[in-house]
């Protein structure tokens, strides 16, 4: 009888839901029907918590661990209050965001290992120690520069990052007032992370931003590999970490003038760069081009008529493992750039991670397709570069596009990197042993522009972005102003950042000299520059010359 009634009741429910669905009426849930009743401190007194006896038996199912008894009370004598609960909720949100951002930063830090493997594998065995050491020490040199002044210049005026607790100590931005608008140029708080910058939230932001800066600096070492004097590399890295990178970082991420193009000039949401196609990769790639132009090609790269020779790397397995490490680290790079996993739209991290994965895969696919069709064989190093190209391109738009957009952006980047590598090598006649200029420079700029095209207007991180209400929307979804903002960002990267990098590195060249001697280059940089061979037991020696390999074609 009871079963029959229950069956009949279920039938009524099913009929009601079906009718509501067919009629387009949204079913009313019980929770929505009732007026919300505020919780009082008296309610909290009635909350039961597991006894110490229960907990002493162990909690294999995990149902008892973590209860009201674990909430920190301001005054244990007064018992649990609403204020205690609310404060705990707030601190939990910030704690989740701290942990998320730190772990993402650790992943990005590990990308250094990926870069080191890719670059070393694409260089010759006689330069393995030198190339690996540049990638290793860029971490130290860059971090030092960033701690001294880079972070302050970039983020010194970035107060208001609510996901990390507000960043209130970072409240100094130097601005010029021109044409009735404020143009933020650089931050003024946070030098040496001292004074009010000695703050838990600032430390989290520093760690995360530092590993991003380090990524930019390590891009340059690839383009200048096999002929860069180590001392010049150290000084150049300091310049990049202390001045060039932080300046553009401030303009894009630190509240500077580019980020305010929306608020000041009604151009969409201003220049947007979710995780750094422009700030990190284009800055690194354009600096790589500047250094490569100053330093010149490797001996043997070009013949007298200007035709290029291929100089294969020594370990393709190392290259592809490095690419996988980089792809893994990118899950910190892009999803981590929400600076949180709780609140202000941060749950979009799932979408960002999928976009990242898709763009890398389609980029690799496009590159392998191009090489297969053009040269008849799938090329391992270019499929690796295609993967990286897709990842670089999706870095800026990852937080604002859907999966179809991400796949298109990555796929086009895979083609673009192949074309760019050929253009740089054959037309510009710039020697870039690892393809860093194309992967990070060309595809970084494409990533910046693609945001202005493909942003689908669904992302709303806490209601506004760069101080403009609403969601970031690209040209294809109706906002041409956003594309113009992105274009001005690209102009700034090419016109200002490249020029600044070129001048800085030209000064280094004049006073220190960027390039090793021809003898050292022919011998390989491991012994002359580092004092030890990368592979002492496997080094090839050309008979009669003392040179490690025959490159004097």
């Amino acid at each position, binding site marked *: 009888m009871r079963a029959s009634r229950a069956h009949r009741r279920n039938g009524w429910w099913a009929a009601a839901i079906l009718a509501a669905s067919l009629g387009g009426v949204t079913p009313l849930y019980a929770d929505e029907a009732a007026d919300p009743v505020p919780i009082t401190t008296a309610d909290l007194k009635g909350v039961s918590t597991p006894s110490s006896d229960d907990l002493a038996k162990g909690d294999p199912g995990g149902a008892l661990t973590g209860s009201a008894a674990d909430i920190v009370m301001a005054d244990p004598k007064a018992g649990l209050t609403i204020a205690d609960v609310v404060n705990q909720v707030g601190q939990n949100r910030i704690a989740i965001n701290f942990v998320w951002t730190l772990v993402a930063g650790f992943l990005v830090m590990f990308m250094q290992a990926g870069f080191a493997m890719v670059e070393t594998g694409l260089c010759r065995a006689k330069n393995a120690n030198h190339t690996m050491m540049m990638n290793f020490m860029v971490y130290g040199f860059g971090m030092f520069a960033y701690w001294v002044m880079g972070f302050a210049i970039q983020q010194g005026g970035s107060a208001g990052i609510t996901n990390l607790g507000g960043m209130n100590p970072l409240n100094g931005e130097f601005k010029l007032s021109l*044409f009735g608008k404020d143009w933020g140029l650089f931050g003024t708080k946070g030098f040496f992370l001292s004074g009010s910058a000695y703050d838990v939230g600032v430390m989290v932001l520093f760690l995360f931003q530092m590993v991003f800066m380090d990524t930019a600096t390590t891009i340059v070492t690839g383009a200048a590999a096999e002929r860069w004097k180590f001392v010049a590399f150290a000084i150049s890295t300091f310049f990049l970490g202390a001045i060039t990178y932080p300046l553009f970082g401030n303009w894009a991420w630190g509240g500077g003038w580019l980020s305010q*193009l929306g608020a000041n*000039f*009604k*151009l969409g949401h201003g220049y947007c760069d979710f995780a750094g196609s422009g700030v990190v990769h284009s800055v690194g790639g354009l600096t790589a*081009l500047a250094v490569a*132009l100053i330093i*010149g*090609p490797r*001996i*043997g*790269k*070009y*013949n*007298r008529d*200007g035709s290029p020779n291929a100089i294969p790397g020594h370990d393709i397995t190392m290259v592809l493992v490095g690419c996988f490490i980089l792809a893994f680290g990118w899950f910190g790079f892009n999803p981590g750039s929400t600076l949180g996993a709780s609140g202000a739209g941060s749950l979009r991290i799932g979408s960002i991670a999928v976009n990242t994965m898709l763009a890398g895969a389609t980029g690799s696919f496009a590159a392998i397709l191009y090489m297969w069709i053009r040269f008849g064989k799938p090329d391992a190093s270019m499929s690796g570069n295609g993967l990286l190209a897709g990842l670089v391109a999706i870095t800026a738009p990852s937080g604002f596009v859907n999966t179809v957009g991400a796949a298109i952006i990555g796929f086009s980047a895979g083609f673009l990197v192949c074309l760019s590598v050929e253009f740089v090598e054959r037309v*510009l*006649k*710039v020697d870039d042993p690892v393809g860093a200029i194309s992967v990070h420079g060309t595809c970084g700029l494409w990533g910046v522009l693609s945001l202005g095209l493909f942003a689908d207007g669904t992302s709303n991180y806490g209601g506004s972005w760069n101080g403009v209400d609403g969601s970031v929307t690209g040209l294809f979804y109706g906002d*041409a*102003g956003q*594309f*113009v903002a992105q*274009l*001005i960002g*690209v*102009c*700034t990267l*090419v*016109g*200002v950042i*490249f*020029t600044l990098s*070129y*001048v800085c590195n030209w000064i280094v060249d004049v006073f220190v000299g960027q*390039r090793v001697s*021809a003898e050292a280059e022919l011998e390989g940089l491991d012994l002359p520059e580092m004092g030890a061979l990368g592979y002492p037991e496997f080094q090839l020696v050309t008979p009669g010359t003392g040179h490690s390999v025959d*490159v*004097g*074609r």
Partner: protein
Amino acid sequence: MQVLALLLLVGGWMIAVGGLVASDAVAVRLILASLGLATSLGGIATLTSAYIQNASWKKGGAWR
């Protein structure tokens, strides 16, 4: 030639930014930003041209 290249590079950026104050119309700003980018890329082309003119491989074999 290098100085000319650097002037073109910075000049292109100034054209793009100049568009912000020259007009409120998105189309005008788009045109000026595109023109600015083309000018800056011309600067890179000029710089590369100077680099190729003085290329190491032209000065006696592969030696710099």
